[in-house]
C-alpha cells in the first residue's frame, strides 16, 4: 500500500476517533452545566413536574445508559430534537452552517489579501533608512498595538465609523455581500497582526539569504526579489500558522456573530449553552469539530504541497 493511500485511509479513522473523544467529553461536560429540567419548567419547581420532564428527556436514566443511547444515536446522525423548540437539532445546526461558512470564507479572503502583501512590505522595508523605512516601522508599531485590541472593541469601532458615521456598510444581519464587510474586517483584525509580523520576520530573514543575493546579482529588481524569491520561502513558515488560524476561526466567529447579529452557528451555540439545550449544543459541536478537522487536513495538505522537504520526507 503506498503512502498516499495509507494517509487517505487514516483520515476517516482519525475523524472517527476525534469525534468519539469530542462527543464523549462534551456529553459529560454539558451535564455538569446544570439541570435542564429547571430551565424547561420555568418558575415551577414542583418536584413532580421536574421529575416528569427529566423522565421525558431520559435524564432519569443512569449516566452510562444516557451516554450509550447518545452514542448509538450519534452514529446514526440522530442527535435528537431541541428541548426548547422541538426542531431537529442537527438541522438547526446545519441551517446556520452556510452563514458561518460565508463569514469564514470572507474573513479568510480579506485576512490573506491584507496580511500577505503587508507582511512582505514590512519585511522588505522595516530595516531601510529612508521614508519607506520610517513608514514601515510606524506601521509595525501600529500592528503591534492592534494585536492587543480585543475583537469586541474593534467591531464596535468599525460599526461606529463605517455604519454610523459614514454609513457605508450595514452593521446588522445577513443582507448579502455588504453585510459581510464589517464582520470579516473584525475577524481579520484579530487574525492579521500575528500573520503580518511572522511574515515580516520571515521575509526579512529570506532577504539576507544567498539565493536572494544571487537574484539581485542576476539583475532582478527589488520587487521581483521580494515577491518572487523571498515571499514564497517566507510563506513556508507561515502556512502552518495560517492553517491554525483557520482552524481557530470559530473563536472569533462566536463573538463577531453576536455583535453583528450574524445568524451563524456561533450564536446558536451560545444560545443553546445558556438554555442547556444539550441536543443543539452537541449538534453544533459535532459540525464544528468536523469543520476544524477538515481545516487542519487542508492545512496539512497545503504544507505538503508548498514544502518539498515535507512532501518528500
Amino acid at each position, binding site marked *: 500500500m503506498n503512502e498516499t493511500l495509507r494517509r487517505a485511509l487514516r483520515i476517516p479513522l482519525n475523524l472517527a476517533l476525534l469525534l468519539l473523544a469530542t462527543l464523549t467529553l462534551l456529553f459529560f461536560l454539558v451535564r455538569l452545566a*446544570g*439541570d435542564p429540567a*429547571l*430551565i*424547561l*419548567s*420555568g*418558575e415551577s419547581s*414542583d418536584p413532580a413536574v421536574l421529575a*416528569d420532564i427529566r423522565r*421525558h428527556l431520559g435524564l432519569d436514566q443512569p449516566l452510562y445508559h444516557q451516554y450509550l443511547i447518545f452514542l448509538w444515536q450519534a452514529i446514526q446522525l440522530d442527535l435528537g430534537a*431541541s428541548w*426548547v*423548540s*422541538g426542531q431537529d437539532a442537527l438541522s438547526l445546526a446545519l*441551517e*446556520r452552517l*452556510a*452563514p458561518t461558512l*460565508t463569514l469564514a*470564507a470572507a474573513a*479568510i*479572503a480579506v485576512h*490573506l489579501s491584507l496580511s*500577505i*502583501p503587508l507582511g512582505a512590505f514590512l519585511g522588505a522595508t522595516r530595516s531601510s533608512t529612508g521614508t519607506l523605512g520610517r513608514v514601515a516601522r510606524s506601521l509595525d508599531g501600529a500592528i503591534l498595538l492592534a494585536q492587543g485590541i480585543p475583537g469586541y472593541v474593534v467591531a*464596535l469601532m468599525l460599526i461606529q465609523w463605517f*455604519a*454610523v458615521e459614514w*454609513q*457605508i*456598510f*450595514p*452593521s*446588522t*444581519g*445577513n*443582507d*448579502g*455581500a*455588504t453585510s459581510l464587510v464589517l464582520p470579516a474586517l473584525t475577524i481579520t483584525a484579530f487574525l492579521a497582526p500575528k500573520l503580518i509580523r511572522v511574515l515580516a520576520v520571515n521575509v526579512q530573514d529570506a532577504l539576507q539569504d544567498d539565493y536572494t543575493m544571487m537574484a539581485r546579482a542576476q539583475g532582478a529588481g527589488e520587487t521581483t526579489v521580494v*515577491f518572487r524569491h523571498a*515571499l*514564497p520561502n517566507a*510563506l513556508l513558515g507561515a502556512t502552518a500558522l*495560517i492553517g491554525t488560524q483557520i482552524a481557530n476561526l470559530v473563536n472569533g466567529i462566536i463573538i463577531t456573530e*453576536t455583535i*453583528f*447579529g*450574524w*445568524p451563524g452557528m456561533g*450564536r*446558536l451555540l451560545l*444560545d443553546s449553552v*445558556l*438554555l*442547556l439545550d444539550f441536543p443543539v449544543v452537541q449538534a453544533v459541536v459535532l459540525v464544528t469539530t468536523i469543520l476544524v478537522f477538515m481545516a487542519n487536513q487542508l492545512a496539512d495538505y*497545503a504544507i505538503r*504541497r*508548498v514544502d518539498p522537504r515535507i512532501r518528500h520526507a
Partner: protein
Amino acid sequence: MLRLERLGTRHGIVIAFWGYRLSRSVVQVRGIFMASWVGLLLLTSCDSNSIETQRGASVDENIIRIASRRLPPGFANPAAHTGQPAVDIWPAFFDALTYINADGDVIPWLATGWTQLTDTRWRFELRNNVRFSNGEPFDADAVALAVNEILLGYGARDLVRTSLLPTVSSAEIIDSHTIDIVTAEPDPLLPKRLSQFYPLPPRYFAEVGPKTFARKPIGTGPFIVERWEAGRVLMRANRQSWRPPAAAGLDFIEIPEPIARRQAIESGQVQLAMYLAPEDITDLKQKDIEIRQAAEPRLRMLVFVVREGSPLASREVRLAMNHAIDKDSIVKYLLSGAGVVATQMGVRGSEGFDDTRQAIPYDPQKARALLLKAGYPKGIDLEMDLLVVTNTDRAVFEAILADLRDVGVRVKVNTMEFERWRAKLLTGDWQHDLFSFTVALDPLLDITKAWQYLTCERPNTPFCQPEISALIDQRARTFDLGERDRLLQRAHDQMMVDPPVVLVHEMEQITGYRDLENLQVDNLMIRWDQIRKRTRSAYE
C-alpha cells in the same frame, strides 16, 4: 452615498477573478487563496434570498425594520414561551383571549367577555367574525384545540403548561363562540394568564403538526409570518385581520448586543430598537432618535438569606441595610431616570399596587444607629451571590455596595453566571447571606411572583416570615379583589418594619425609534397593528 448592496453575482465574479489574479503573485498559497475567494463567491451567490428580501424591504416604504434583542429560541411554538422574548414578536401575528393593557388591567381581546361560573369553571364568550390568516374561522374549536394540544397534548411538559397555566384541566365547547375552561383548583388569575395563550387554527394545525407550525405559524393577528429565518423574521400585513395593521410589513432582526442595537438605530438601518441601555438615552435624544420609556415589570432587589446566628436574623440590621442605599441617586444618575424607586414587592400596574406607599428613606445616620442598636458597632461582614448581566447592573451594584460599606456593611461578592444563579433560585440552595434578584413580573404583572420565592412553604426558602407568608397564601386563594388588596397591604406594612429584602428600583423598557408614529407599549408589548412609518428613512 456608496450603495455597495447593489453588488450582485456578476460583480462577485469580477472580484473573485481579481482576487485570484492577486493571489497568483503569491504563488505558494494560491490554493488557499483561490479556495477562499471562490468559496465566498459561491456562498454569497447561494445567499441571494436574503439580499433580495432586503431589497424588497427597503423598496417598500412602509416596512418597518426592528432591532430585537432576541428572537424566541422556540420560534413560534405557542407552548414554549411566556414573557420575553416571545411577547416582543408573537403579538404581531398571534392574538390571545385576553390582553393586559398599560394600566395592568385585563381587557377583552379574542374573548369579548368572561364569567366565573364556579370556583373552577370560567365561561368565555368569543369574538365573532374573526378569521385566521389562512381563512379558517376563529371559534370555540380553535380554543379547545389549543387547550388540548398546548396544555394537555404535545406541550404538556413545556413552559406555558408548567409555568403559566398548570391548573387548566379541560375545555368544554358550549356553542361555536362560547367555551368553558375548567381548572383543577381555584385560579383567580385565569383571565390574566390567558393573555399569553394563543388559539390554534384546527385544520392547518392538523395538517402540519407542531414542528412545522412553529416555523410557519398562523394566527389571527395583524401580520402574517412570511419567513422565519435564523436571526430574522419577515412579516407582511394581514389586511383581513380583525385589527388590520397600519404598516405593510415588519422585519425583525436579532441583535443581542445593546450597543449594536443602538448603533443600528443611529445609522438608520432599523427604525425601531428594543431594550436600549439607560446610558444611551441622553445621547440618542440629541441625535433626534425618539425614546419611549415604558414601565418594564421588573423589580431589582437584594434578598436576605437568614440563618440562625446570622447578623441578618436581626430586624435592625435588615432595616439598616434598607436605609443605607441611596436609591434616588441610582435611578437619577445610573439609570438616567429610566426607572423608579421601588416601594413595595410589585410594580406600577400590578394588581394591588399602592401608589401612595413610600420607600424606606435613604438615611445613613439611621442605618449606623440601627447597626449599633443591633450590637454591631464595628459593622458586619456579609457575602453575596451576584448576577450581573449588563453594564447597568454592574454600575448599580457597585453603587449599592459602596453605600452599604459607608454605613459599615462590608459585602464580599461572588459573581455567577445566569444558569448557576437560576438553579440556586429555583432550588433555594443559597450558601451566602444575600443574593441579587431582578424579579420579572411579566407577562401577568403578577405580584405573587415576587413573593413566591419567600413563602415559608417553598423548600429552602431564604427567609421564612410566617405572618407575611400566611397573608400571601390567603390572598392567593381569595377571589374578592378588595380583600386581596387588603391582605397584600397588610403584608407590605409588615415588610416595611421587618424587611425580607432590600428593595432597590423598578425598571423601564427603553425603546428608540425614528421615522415612526403611533408607537404604543403595553406591559412590554408593542401594539404592532398601530405603528407606521412616518417618512422614508434618510439612510435608505
